[in-house]
């Protein structure tokens, strides 16, 4: 495990040398910037309408109206972008046969998986955190609930961990990046919409599906509600996927 840091360093280098991370960041920030712009417009129009009415409107504040929607969009956009960040992680080492170097070096499979997961999470966090200008801008013009903002970013971090671990797993089963990406998208879309868009035959099944859904556990967090059950679920989801990745690499040696 004391080889973890140099390993993460190498992984980060690989991200900085390849265009994919820049493209993902560019597309993400462009989309989120556009969403921010349009929700600002929407908000100010509503604000003008509401100012004419006399009754108090609950929940009508910039954090709830703008940030909540943006957090949700950021999560959804990353359902499609995470696979692009994670697809090369293990598949490319297999294709380039550098896996042979790693597996014959004094590195454990655990270090390899942890290093790759952490490096991808760092890239993801950098991209996510570069949207911090949004609450800062709102704060400049109005006021923002920083606890809600914090909870929202925590939510993004946690679903990021869950999504990246799925990406690591899919990248471990193949030596082709495209296959890894498609598998990851498939699994993430399923776990995102399960219990919501994708329902069950009965109420009970739909409820169970909702419990399994990544989105429904993200929902509370981006709405500003901190619930340990959501945190525990998302963390366990990541741990299980990483554990499976370990199994995949380990059992691959025995074939």
């Amino acid at each position, binding site marked *: 495990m004391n080889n973890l840091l140099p390993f993460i360093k190498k992984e980060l*280098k690989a991200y900085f040398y390849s265009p994919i991370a820049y493209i993902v960041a560019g597309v993400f920030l462009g989309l989120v910037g556009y969403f921010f712009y349009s929700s600002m417009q929407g908000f100010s129009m509503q604000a003008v309408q509401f100012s004419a009415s006399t009754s108090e409107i609950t929940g009508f504040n910039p954090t709830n109206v703008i940030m909540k929607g943006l957090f949700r969009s950021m999560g959804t956009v990353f359902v499609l972008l995470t696979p692009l960040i994670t697809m090369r992680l293990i598949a490319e080492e297999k294709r380039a046969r550098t896996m042979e170097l790693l*597996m014959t*070096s*004094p590195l454990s499979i655990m270090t390899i998986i942890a290093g790759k997961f952490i490096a991808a999470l760092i890239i993801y966090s950098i991209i996510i955190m570069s949207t911090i200008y949004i609450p800062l801008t709102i704060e400049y013009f109005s006021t923002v609930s920083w606890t809600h903002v914090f909870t929202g970013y925590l939510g993004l971090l946690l679903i990021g961990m869950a999504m990246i671990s799925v990406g690591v797993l899919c990248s471990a089963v193949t030596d082709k990046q495209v296959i890894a990406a498609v598998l990851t998208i498939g699994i993430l879309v399923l776990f995102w919409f399960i219990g919501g868009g994708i329902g069950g035959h009965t109420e009970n099944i739909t409820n169970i599906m909702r419990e399994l859904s990544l989105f429904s556990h993200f929902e509370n967090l981006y709405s500003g509600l901190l619930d340990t059950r959501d945190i525990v679920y998302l963390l366990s989801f990541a741990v299980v996927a990483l554990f499976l990745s370990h199994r995949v690499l380990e059992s691959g040696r025995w074939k």
Partner: protein
Amino acid sequence: MISVNNVTKYFGDRAAVNDVSFTVNKGEILGFLGPNGAGKTTTLRIMTGFFPPSQGTVTIDGQDVFEHPYEIKKKIGYMPEHPPLYYDMSARECLSFVAEIHGLRGSAAGSAIRRVSELCGITHMLDRLTGNLSKGYRQRVGLAHALIHDPAILILDEPTSGLDPMQIIEIRELIKNLGRERTVILSSHILFEVTNVCKRVAIINNGRIVAVDTIEKLSDKFGKGKQIVLTVTRPERMDLKKLSSIDGVIDAVQDNGGRFTVSISGGDNVLERISSEVVSMQAGLIEMKHAAMTLEEIFLKTVSGG
């Protein structure tokens, strides 16, 4: 000392390596020979801990490779058949990554990189992307990877494949030098290559070891006492029928001009009879020697099961 004990490796239900056993003594350079697909790479991968054998064990200095992966992997420098390089990193970055995962940091890593790049002759290529290097230089960077932690054991899988003749000579000299204080296992299907470098060879074919011995002993075993080469100045006077009828001679053939090969069974008395017969033919006998087989011939013989 490295010992490979009854190692078998299945891919699906095909055994790529079947009941392979041999030992490598400390400080020796062992040639590991076999035609394409014989199982060389598979055997070396098992020895380096890349994957476990289906059956059998590999021990290095008494430690099992799969029970003590860390200790073993620190002792071994392995150069795979395809040099594992990150093509979007420079040679220096690749080397420093490999140095770091071997626990070398800071100035220790720096001096290790300097040492191996001088050794492998890549100092002037260090800042190029490995993806842009020629095959020969990629091979050298791969070798530098294997040497970075100054391992006691070097395992090289076809280190000279794809190099030009000059580079082959250079790398061969380098391996010879490295072998002075290290145990080296060198796989190849080019026999000429190992004749100069190794004293002992293991020959594998179809996943099975067919011979392990020193080159001299192997050529003895397959050559000496079986074939005699005669050189005469007047070949027209040689009577092959008469030669063949000598007690102990199996067969006599003319190779070319004054050179004849006589297959015999028996010892010095047969040789004496042959020489006196040739002298009495007045063929002008100028040379008579055992036909020492070249490695190529041994190889063909063992591989073809002869």
